[in-house]
């Protein structure tokens, strides 16, 4: 974005009259004023809290003593914390792969049917994304309920034994992932559909004349054309999924045995619920290195694409 912008500016900055020069001088101060609120938001609500979090994480439980890296030390030695690290990564990776695959498949299917009907289907398929996740998760919770599970009722029709959705650790992990995939797949679908529509039709026509099979068309035209959008959405979604909070909080609260805790819910549990703010801050700061890696790849992708567009 920054690149496309810098290309736009010189065209404006060139004019020669002196009044315009004066304007240009004034321009930067007006511009500064206009961005000031944004700068305040970024500095006051992101940069400052981030620095403050680092400071907090170095205090003792009662926050009356500076203890250096002790909180991190305690965490690294704690079994539960490593389970949280594992679960967060496992949750984010599997959920994002599933969301991307389902989203891609559905986008493809939507693209295949006549344009007239697409709107209707798209409208219905986007509903999970529209309902606030904390609320729809309540519905899932009730469907998973050990005694009254309506999902188990359906499974019973096919003679499948009742599933302990939230009781058995692996099932609980799967249940949480299912809800996240259900919620996020429509987003992928919409993104991929937009990308599919931007692939020039002529490419397919040319391929059809060359006798390419549909697999070949997918492999050599669609995927390369969508490569950028796929990687950016996946990375974006990795961040959001990795930092997820509401689904786990409503569905399992981290149980059974803390095995479904993610960074966010664990930080909440430790920091706010148990009143150990410094350790909670330390837990959430552990997310940073991984997020930084994701952000690096996203920024690279965005910049590359902007260069291609120029």
């Amino acid at each position, binding site marked *: 974005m920054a690149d496309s912008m810098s290309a736009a500016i010189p065209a404006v900055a060139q004019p020669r009259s002196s009044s315009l020069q004066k304007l240009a001088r004034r321009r930067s101060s007006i511009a500064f004023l206009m961005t000031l609120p944004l700068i305040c938001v970024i500095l006051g609500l992101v940069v400052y809290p981030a620095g403050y979090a680092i400071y907090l994480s170095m205090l003792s439980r009662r926050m009356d003593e500076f203890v250096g890296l002790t909180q991190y030390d305690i965490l690294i030695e704690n079994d539960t914390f490593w389970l949280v690290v594992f679960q967060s990564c496992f949750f984010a990776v599997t959920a994002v792969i599933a969301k991307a695959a389902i989203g891609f498949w559905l986008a493809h299917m939507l693209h295949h049917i006549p344009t007239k009907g697409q709107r209707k289907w798209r409208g219905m398929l986007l509903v999970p994304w529209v309902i606030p996740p904390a609320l729809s998760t309540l519905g899932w919770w009730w469907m998973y309920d*050990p005694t009254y599970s309506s999902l188990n009722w359906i499974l019973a029709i096919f003679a499948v034994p009742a599933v302990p959705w*939230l*009781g058995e650790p692996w099932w609980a992990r799967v249940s949480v992932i299912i809800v996240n995939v259900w919620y996020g797949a429509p987003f992928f679908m919409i993104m991929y559909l937009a990308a599919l529509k931007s692939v020039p039709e002529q490419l397919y026509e040319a391929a059809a004349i060359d006798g390419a099979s549909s697999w070949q068309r997918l492999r050599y035209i669609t995927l390369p054309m969508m490569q950028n959008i796929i990687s950016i959405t996946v990375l974006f979604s990795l961040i959001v999924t990795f930092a997820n909070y509401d689904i786990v909080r409503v569905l399992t609260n981290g149980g059974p045995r803390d095995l479904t805790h993610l960074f966010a819910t664990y930080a909440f549990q430790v920091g706010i619920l*148990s009143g150990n703010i410094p350790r909670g801050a330390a837990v959430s700061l552990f997310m940073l290195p991984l997020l930084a890696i994701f952000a690096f790849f996203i920024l690279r992708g965005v910049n590359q694409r902007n260069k291609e567009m120029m």
Partner: protein
Amino acid sequence: MSKLEVTRRAALGAGVATVGTLSAPAVFGQPTTTIRCGFWDHWVPAGNDVLRRLCAQWGERNRANINVDFITSVGNQNLLTIAAQAQSRSGHDILSFPTWEPAAHQRMLVNVDDVMGRLTRKYGPVTPAAEYLGKPGGNWVAIPAVSGTQMKPACVRFDLMQQHAGIDIRAMWPAENRAGPGADTWNWDTFARAAEACNRAGVPFGLPMGSFTDAVDWLGALFASYGANVMDERGNITVRNNANLRAAVDMAVRISRQLPNDVWAWDDASNNRALISGRSALIFNPPSAWVSARRDNPAVGAQCWTVPVPSGPQGRFVGYLPYFWGIWNFSRVQGPAKELLEFLSDREQADAQTSTSAGYDIPPFLSMNDFNVWSTEGPPVGTVYNYPLRAHHNARTSVAFAPAPANLAVQAYNQALNTKLIARIVQANESVDQAFGWLERELNTIRRGG
């Protein structure tokens, strides 16, 4: 510009809040006195109304405004509220504190020795467990509450128990002040055999093993009846070479193998649903489950009978979840707040709370264990007769993780270390020694961060 607006509006909001506090003078009796109360959101629906009514009544008499909020313990919302108010030193004047919280926040609570002195002179001693929790270091920091304080004896489907385990629980624990035949055999061993029989019959006991209070409390009672402590009064970890602990764990493991396979994720409502749906022969719960069953599934409700917890080698202990009414030391209406709480603790008001909650609320004073409601509630009449402690039960109230120091116990309690210990053995197939190793590490973490 818009940023300025945020702060201005924010300041405005804060200003309104401060003005509200300042304009309430500490002088008692002025019509402008406002006491903000955050009580526990009662599980028996009528429970909130009676508190609201009593507060309004007192407010009218004393020309004070009483604002009453009800804060649920679902999802630990009440713990969240306590933490937030302690953190920001603002919020309510009076708040309900469960189990370990008064001791954990004792430095921020107003000393209520005077109120408790007057009340004990009138009504005699309070339940030892309530005294232990509410009087850390020799001073009362909070008043044991009536509303919300509960015990967790067994709520039994007497028909299923008779049919599958051959135990006539109503004969054993009749609605009278005496133990029936076989009451002396009502121990954990009998209980485990009954659990097996009922599980075989497809109506397993519904004992939660998750991280919420119902789970932690019943398991705490079992541990107590074996004399199994994981930490002593001075905070030393006593997991290693602890024969009592091992015996308690063996029994807990034995029982939990007879439970539904998803009890590990049950919350405080799951066991009630298991009972109400008719799928379970026994749960440990206050009468709220029975009250819901009476309303939603009367056929089940009519077959419920509350009886004491089974006994162990060290006696009979019943899970006890007391609430305390504490006054924050940042409150500007401490005097009136004390008066209000004293009023709510009086026998007449206590009776009103217990009676409207279908006998759910347990008053802290032993002399009040004779309210009429426990004999008259039904159907079946007498079903909650044995809910409060009766002399012939020979039972004591138990608090999980006692006698550890409160600031450590509160963490062990909130993290549900006892149910997780059993879960590691039963669900994750760890050996008992491995699980003990884990427990020691967790307790050590708590000590280090304490």
